[in-house]
């Protein structure tokens, strides 16, 4: 898919065309060391070519360590491009199910994981009040306004 028309709103300063595919980003990427399918340079190339697959789960592997951002000789900010792609993918409902599950949980209880009985017991032992099982109406309104719920 061609993201370029939508990119500006997410990416800010347009440095995309400055990329000359030198590979400094991927070479220093900690995720790429374990998961070669996440290749920042290749993602930037696909965005430049207007051929990015927004359903690609690898887009979501970025740890936002900022190595690529710091080292890119052309100030392309590859990290922000990956984030732009995930934001647009999310808005179109193309995020992987694992991400959606996590966000459904957030909408339900305000946390990205279930409240375990171990956590409940520990809080009780510390004399803390029990966690709320439901989120407030305000929270739901914010989620609707920001498009958070729409992408699910």
């Amino acid at each position, binding site marked *: 898919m061609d993201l370029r028309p939508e990119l500006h709103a997410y990416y800010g300063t347009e*440095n995309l065309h*400055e990329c*000359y*595919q*030198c*590979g*400094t*980003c*991927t*070479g*220093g*990427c900690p995720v*790429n*060391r374990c998961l*070669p399918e996440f*290749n920042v*340079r*290749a993602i930037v190339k696909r965005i430049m070519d207007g051929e990015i697959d927004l359903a690609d789960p690898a887009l979501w592997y970025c740890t936002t360590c900022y*190595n690529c951002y710091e*080292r890119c*000789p*052309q*100030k392309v900010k590859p990290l922000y491009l990956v984030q732009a792609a995930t934001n647009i993918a999310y808005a179109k409902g193309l995020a992987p199910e694992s991400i959606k599950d996590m966000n459904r949980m957030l909408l339900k209880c305000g946390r990205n994981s279930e409240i375990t009985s171990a956590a409940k017991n520990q809080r009780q032992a510390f004399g803390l009040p029990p966690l709320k099982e439901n989120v407030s109406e305000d929270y739901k309104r914010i989620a609707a306004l920001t498009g958070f719920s729409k992408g699910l």
Partner: protein
Amino acid sequence: MSSVLVVGGGISGLQAAAGLARAGVGVILVEREERPGGNLKSLGTTFGGGRPAAELIQQRMRAITASATVNILTGTEVVSLGGVYPRLQASLKTPEGTREVECRSIILATGFTPFNPAAMKHYAFGKHPDVITAVELADKLKGDRLRRNSNGEEPDALVFIQCIGSRELRTHTYCSAFCCMYAVHCALQVKERLPRCRVEVLYMDIRTPFCAELEYETARRKGIGFIRSKPAAVRAKRENGRLIVQYEDTLDGALRFMETDMAVLSVGAEPPRDAAAMAESLGIATEESGFFACEPAPVFTRAKGVFVAGAAGGPKDIRACLAEGTAAAAQAAIICKE
């Protein structure tokens, strides 16, 4: 009164002075260092034919010293420039004291400064003694044996990293034009000295135009490896003190860790350090890059009688510097006859 002041005794300034000497024009050639030759002094042989740099300098020096019209001032700094044609002025700080000069023409041949990669901490420059600049490698290649700084041994593997301080929004956006050619030339020299040494060049684009392409072809044939990548990091391997170069081979998308003995940073050209001040005092312009602006290119400037020769007007190879030295000399000689 001397007719022409040549600022800078590098190859361009020497070429200009030698040309003016042949024309019988009075010249003062000012060189900041004790010996003329500029950046060529650190080179052994030059790419595109392999001629010794010292020979290129000596040929011009012979023509200059044989001439009665050229006065060379070494160890001399230009304190200020000014005036307008036909009364251009310069204040010089010579070892003997200050000297005021008036002339009809000034040739700015201030050359370039090699990029200093001190800020490139991710390449371990300044941290590991075996990470050196190409200038240092050229100096090593002038000697008999090529050795590592760390342990004095010959390297089993050596890698060039291209585009250091060139083609980067972070440092200088322009291409310094000569780095690919000198890297290929030096790589071949390393291979010739140490045939068993693995030599690789990490590049983004190899720019060896015209006949330099033949040297690139020779390099590939002689087994020098060319890998398309700008590495992310160079660091020391704890176990043996060698270097690890971490990079993505962009042609197959694989992350690799290369173990090597020496990393050579192919540094580009920076503008001469006082270009802006000189340009302002003479009423000429500088480029966005910081080099003198030639209007129209080559050698002419906005100010009558003021010419630019060689890398002072932007990165160039020796051949182009020689051409511009001659061109500037011709223009200055015409000015002097007006």
